[in-house]
């Protein structure tokens, strides 16, 4: 399934790029993120808890950065599982930063996500809605952090 | 951990964990293998048994929750005259192909005829709508049930 969205941050592109590739900051913005670990400059491990109704799924993910073109673009691949491989997830992600009016930055993201296993069977349509809701929450959190820091 | 379940008129003592279903206990411990594990989700009907006289899914019944209920499997209906008529009609009509769905269908059909001795074809189909058959296309099954109903009339 394809998850995409965009949001505008009142901060210049260079700043946004630095923060969006900063694992310590991202850990605080991704809803349900319990831990992020830097394995090497291009590889991160993350543990994310996602709840859908009565189902709680703890995802163990590895994110590999494939391409980085500051301050415009990051291409990465995510692979992972939950429930001891009860579900397997993989996604190809692209993040693009575009200058917005008034000196801000528009953050655009696209992910092609594939989920197989027990969550894949549950109802992919509804998972897409959940993923979009998580994306919106992430945007809110990220914007909040960046704009608060800029104001201080 | 031991449970006392009433199965086909006898108390049987079985071991069950919290997540063990009646289907698992019937098949694996009591070797009452008429009820089949088809989908294990309650959709296909191959596990249909009678609980307190009503057709229900053994795969959706936690064994621990079945203490105190009267469970009847197809094995327990072998001396029932109505079931005998159904089995004879199924064989004569050709309503059995691979046989996997058959026990569940027979239990549902038995329950249907117990409440409606002379069902129309649409009532038969509605009454059996909880049993899937991948082989037969259902027509022979409905004919067999109608035939068994006819045989019951004095």
């Amino acid at each position: 399934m394809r998850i995409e969205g965009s949001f505008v941050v009142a901060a210049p592109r260079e700043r946004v790029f630095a923060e969006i590739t900063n694992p310590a900051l991202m850990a605080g913005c991704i809803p349900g993120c319990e831990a992020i670990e830097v394995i090497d400059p291009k590889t991160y491990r993350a543990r994310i808890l996602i709840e859908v109704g009565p189902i709680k799924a703890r995802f163990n993910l590895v994110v590999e950065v494939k391409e980085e073109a500051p301050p415009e673009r990051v291409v990465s691949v995510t692979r992972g599982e939950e429930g001891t491989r009860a579900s397997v997830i993989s996604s190809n992600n692209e993040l693009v930063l575009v200058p917005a009016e008034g000196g801000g930055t528009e953050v655009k993201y696209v992910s092609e996500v594939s989920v197989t296993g027990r969550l894949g069977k549950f109802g992919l349509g509804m998972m897409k809605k959940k993923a979009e809701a998580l994306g919106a929450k992430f945007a809110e959190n990220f914007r909040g952090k960046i704009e608060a820091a800029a104001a201080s | 951990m031991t449970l006392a379940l009433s199965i086909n008129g006898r108390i049987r003592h079985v071991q069950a964990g919290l997540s063990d279903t009646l289907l698992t206990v019937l098949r694996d411990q009591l070797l009452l293998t008429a009820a089949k594990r088809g989908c294990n989700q309650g959709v296909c009907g191959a596990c249909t048994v009678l609980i307190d006289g009503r057709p229900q899914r053994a795969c959706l019944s936690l064994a621990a929750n079945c203490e105190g209920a009267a469970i009847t499997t197809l094995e327990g209906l072998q001396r029932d005259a109505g079931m005998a008529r159904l089995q004879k009609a199924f064989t004569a009509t050709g309503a059995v192909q691979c046989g996997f769905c058959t026990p569940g269908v027979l239990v549902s059909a038995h329950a249907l005829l117990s409440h409606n001795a002379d069902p129309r074809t649409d009532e038969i189909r509605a009454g059996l709508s909880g049993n899937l058959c991948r082989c037969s296309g259902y027509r022979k099954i409905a004919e067999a049930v109608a035939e068994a109903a006819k045989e019951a009339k004095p």
Partner: protein
Amino acid sequence: MSVPGYHRPKSVEDAARLLAETDGARCLSGGATLVAMMNASLAEPKAIVSLAGIPELAGIAELANGGFRIGAMTRHAATAADARLAGTLAVLRDAARQIANPVVRNMGTIGGSIGFADPAADYPPALVAANAEVEIVNAAGRRRVAARDFFVDWYTTACGPGEFVTGVHLPPPRPGAGLYRKLARVSGDFAIASVALSAARDAAGVSVRIAVGGCGPRPIRADAADALLSAKFGDAAAAAAAGEALAAAADPVDDVRASAEYRRLVIPRLVAETVAHARAALEAR
């Protein structure tokens, strides 16, 4: 003799206390959803609180005001067979009789079903159309929530941690019609889209409540749709406009049953068809 982790309390208060105090406990009604999820490893409760032994959760009782209280453990077969749910309340009977198949209807319960709040299930839009209230209990006591506020999001209800549904309250039945129509791939499937309609008729005219199921996180309703249908019941243009209003309010997904686009297309047609049937039912009286 019993199984560790399995509890069968005799009162609602005991059940609420057990749920609050026992780590990883889930309550068990008919098992049609929970046990299926356990079989698929989507739920792994550490304890089960069975509601089967609690008398006040069983049965449909008439209330002093002429309405009804459906106990949470009432099986779909019993709800579908209860002739007292007539007139405007018939929408609930019509929905119950279309749930799954006769065997699952002997097992599934209204409390379990609405507690799970599958967006494609049959009771949620019917409860909204019937103007029902849901009775919830927790360790501190009971409360009631209007059906339209009970279904909050995908598989999410107004029940908080440790809370569960004890019953559904229905207002007194009024003369009129109550219908539930479902579009599904096969008999007994969850809805691609469904419409629940309750139309009360008196000397002043017709008062309609309509809700759409299977097309969003919650039953879809629109004040404009209710108003249009009440003002001009049976008028094709009004039904079309109501259908469009409901389709615009919908938030459907693409899933294995249908695409979001198909659902949006189908809503006005299903609304028009349901209104036509309701009108015929009213005229037949």
